[in-house]
């Protein structure tokens, strides 16, 4: 199918989005049983009667699951329910041990909130939050015998229930209207902001690549000027920030193409494909879909004490957007520089380096320069580099004390990364101390003047700027270990230009 262009789509239609994000909490145990949630355990080794749905088993609510839900709700400016219940969502699926999901229905723990997200041009867009509720994850199926490990063409499937019962918080937006052409950007910015928020709250690592945070993108178009929403599609499990943006964009173009053709949009789930950024149809939602929700009789209502809620509210960390603004001010960065710090994931390392005693500009310089380059090259996270903020701070201190210059400092960092020990140890082992002793430098300075008589004359004539070339020569003969500032002083002194 040839899609109409994005611009053409936007010329005729106004997109309305709904985003549903599932966050796997980082609790030690599952939502309703004491099984461990550690990733990577051998199959079915973290299961019990409850999370396997064995006959007779019963759920008991994880208090930290509830606490995390309240924290998320508060951070999203939601009201916290005085009283709420769990409900059973009934449908059959082999990865769901009880064939109902213990979730919340018309009584979510948190509702009516909003999240302000900052767009690339600095504008703040407010996304209204419908609700945040607690539920449980399903098991994991592997499809065997099909060509691609996909469900189609598989001869059978194998089920591992280690993930079954891991706490999830589902966060649902109200319809996002008014984003216009920036709808895909808003979608991405919202998920990115939500992810930062979840991480700041410490309730989950929210790694999308590990499935700890998953996004469903609901999208519909309506002709400009019409109030009534169009029929929506539900693109499931979009699992990276970039994909969220692409999925929204693709669906806008696809819907526009269908509508332009005089066709109708079918309400269906769709699957997103990373390879080409397209979506394809999944299950059509017919009327047979009836989850027959009813209050979970095996669990009693949750009525969070107001004192507890207020205690959690008071302990909320600074929200990411405000924190970013504060740090940008403190570090004196332009919007663009701050953006690159954020993109590099350097906020935390820089903060810790500052905390270890380094000046902000120095801390940023090393993390965003040498270390970011290396992280980029090796495709790893900045935080995974084998150097600690304390070590970076020590290098900064050595530079400030004049014991290292930048070139030597780079070599020290290299040594630390190579596992050669602490910065001071690398300095000692490699003999990297800066030479600033006048007698040691004297010969090199004299030599440079003798080797470059023309430049020396220029300087004597008052063209002081030319001294750089002589400094360079000295640095070369001292193999970079000279204190450049001292060399410059000595040269100017000897040439009578000081």
């Amino acid at each position, binding site marked *: 199918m040839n899609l109409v262009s994005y611009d053409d789509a936007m010329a005729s239609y106004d997109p309305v989005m709904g985003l549903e994000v599932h966050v796997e909490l980082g609790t030690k145990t599952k939502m309703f049983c004491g099984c461990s949630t550690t990733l990577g355990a051998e199959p079915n080794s973290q299961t019990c*009667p409850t999370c*396997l*749905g*064995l*006959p*007779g*088993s*019963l*759920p*008991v*609510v994880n208090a930290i699951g509830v606490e995390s839900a309240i924290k998320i709700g508060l951070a999203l400016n939601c009201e916290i329910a005085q009283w709420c219940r769990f409900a*059973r969502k*009934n449908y*059959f699926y*082999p990865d769901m*041990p*009880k*064939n*109902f999901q213990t979730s919340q229905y018309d009584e979510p723990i948190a509702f009516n909130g909003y999240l302000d997200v900052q767009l690339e041009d600095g504008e703040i867009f407010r996304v209204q939050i419908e609700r945040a509720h607690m539920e449980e994850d399903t098991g994991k199926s592997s499809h065997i015998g099909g060509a691609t490990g996909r469900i189609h063409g598989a*001869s059978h*499937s194998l*089920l591992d229930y280690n993930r079954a019962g891991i706490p999830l918080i589902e966060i649902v937006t109200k319809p996002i209207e008014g984003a216009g052409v920036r709808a895909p950007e808003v979608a991405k910015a919202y998920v990115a902001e939500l992810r930062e928020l979840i991480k700041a709250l410490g309730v989950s690592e929210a790694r999308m690549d590990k499935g700890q945070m998953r996004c469903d993108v609901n999208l519909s178009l309506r002709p400009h000027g019409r109030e009534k929403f169009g029929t929506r599609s539900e693109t499931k499990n979009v699992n990276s920030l970039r994909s969220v943006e692409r999925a929204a964009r693709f669906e806008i173009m696809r819907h526009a193409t269908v509508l332009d053709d005089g066709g109708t949009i079918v309400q269906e789930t769709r699957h997103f494909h990373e390879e080409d950024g397209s979506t394809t149809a999944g299950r059509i939602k017919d009327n047979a879909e*009836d989850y*027959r*929700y*009813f209050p979970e*009789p*095996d*669990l*009693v209502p949750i009525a969070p004490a107001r004192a507890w809620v207020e205690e959690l509210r008071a302990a909320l960390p600074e929200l990411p957007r405000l924190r970013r603004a504060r740090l940008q001010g403190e570090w004196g960065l332009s919007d663009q520089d701050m953006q690159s710090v954020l993109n590099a994931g350097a906020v935390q390392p820089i903060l810790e380096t500052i905390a270890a005693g380094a000046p902000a500009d120095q801390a940023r310089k090393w993390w965003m320069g040498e270390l970011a380059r290396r992280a980029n090259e090796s495709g790893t996270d900045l935080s995974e580099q084998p150097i600690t903020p304390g070590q970076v701070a020590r290098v900064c201190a050595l530079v400030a004390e004049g014991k290292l210059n930048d070139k030597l400092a780079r070599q020290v960092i290299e040594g630390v990364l190579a596992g050669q020990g602490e910065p001071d140890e690398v300095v000692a082992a490699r003999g990297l101390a800066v030479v600033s002793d006048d007698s040691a430098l004297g010969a090199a300075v004299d030599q440079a003047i003798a080797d470059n008589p023309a430049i020396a004359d220029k300087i004597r004539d008052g063209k002081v700027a030319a001294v750089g070339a002589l400094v360079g020569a000295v640095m070369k003969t001292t193999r970079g270990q000279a204190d450049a500032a001292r060399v410059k002083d000595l040269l100017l002194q000897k040439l009578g230009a000081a």
Partner: protein
Amino acid sequence: MTDLIKYTAADTAAAIASGQVSAVEVAQAHLDRIDAVDKKVNAFLHVDTEGALAAARAVDDRRAKGEELGPLAGVPLALKDVFTTKGVPTTCGSKILEGWIPPYDATLTSRLKDAGVVILGKTNMDEFAMGSSTENSAYGPTGNPWDLSRIPGGSGGGSAAALAAYEAPLAIGTDTGGSIRQPGAVTGTVGVKPTYGSVSRYGLVAFSSSLDQGGPCARTVLDAALLHEAIAGHDPLDSTSIDAPVPAVVAAAKLRDVRGMRIGVVKEFAGEGYQAGVMQRFNESVELLRELGAEVVEVSCPSFTLALPAYYLIAPSEASSNLARFDAMRYGLRVGDDGTRSAEDVTALTREAGFGPEVKRRIILGTYALSSGYYDAYYGSAQKVRTLISRDFDAAFAGVDVLISPTTPTTAFPIGERADDPMAMYLADLCTIPSNLAGNAAMSLPCGLAPEDNLPVGLQIIAPAMADDRLYRVGGAVEAALNDKWGHPLLEEAPAL
């Protein structure tokens, strides 16, 4: 020591504790009895000979070492096959769980083991506890020891029949709409539905989670109380478990004094459908209580007339969800997996083959009641009825200590009589259901034989939530007075098997 099987649990425990008899001898006597009569009665689905003897030996060893034994140590018990037992099959009377061996014990099972109770085996029941006759078992009906051609009640007919047939002095049942009390009534035994939340449901295979409650079955009120104390109490694995001390039911059972108590007769439990002989024995019980010094008044609970309809919406609704887990994927029966069929089809074929008609009927009824278009009219209304019934109980208990009624409108009916008439079958639970909906405590104990058929009649006593001790106080007094009058326990009038 000839008639070990006729001993009460209290006397058995005392005899073992004093060394008059060993726990192994007691266990063996009951295993022999099961061997002799259970082909006729079909009370047991599984007899755990090895496990029972091992448990008995452990009690004897502890006694030999001079260890203190609990009040039920060495006493044999018949466990309804709806509680999980680690390493011992658990079927819930269903084909779909045939051969399933749970990897874990129910909390109740662990408590029995900890108390030194000797679990003889698992008893027959209506499939997934859905029924009032034990005819819905996939493993054949259980006979009523009073007349093997009649039903022993249900769903816990196996447990009640095991008591009446002297196959065990104690048994465990579960009561969702009367499944402990109604079998107790029709077999001339004692059955108690404790306050909802007082006996852990962890390991009780759920039929209707908000109604199910495990409880004691015995031949005497005191034995029921001893078992009640052994199994009740807070369990952190059950979120609906009450975290409060268990009422002193054993002391209450021994009190045998109802002077000064106020007792209410529920007006609505009489009239059409109530057998004359049942009402006659019930009315005699009312007189007896007066003679014993209680004040008896009539009370009205108008919403009780809606209890049965509400129950037949709530219980099937919860059941339709609870039984969804039987899908042929993780345990139990799997039918039709020939390599061509999908998981969906295999699930549907397995459930079709593995569930009996009553279970299917209730699953469909429950699915219907929870459907979006019907939820408010059916499930939602049924939950409102529940509130009204609780209010009726509250109003009644404001003026009286306990309520009484016949346990069932009729005595045991013949096997097959109501098998394909669900509505007629459902009437058996008319008087027992309100207490399940409200969550309060209730007991059935024998109050005589109906003159027209010489079959046992049950007297139901109902107490407020967490006042289970009142059941035992009234029950103990009535039992003592009747045994005095008859000169022996009612069960001795049952024909020999």
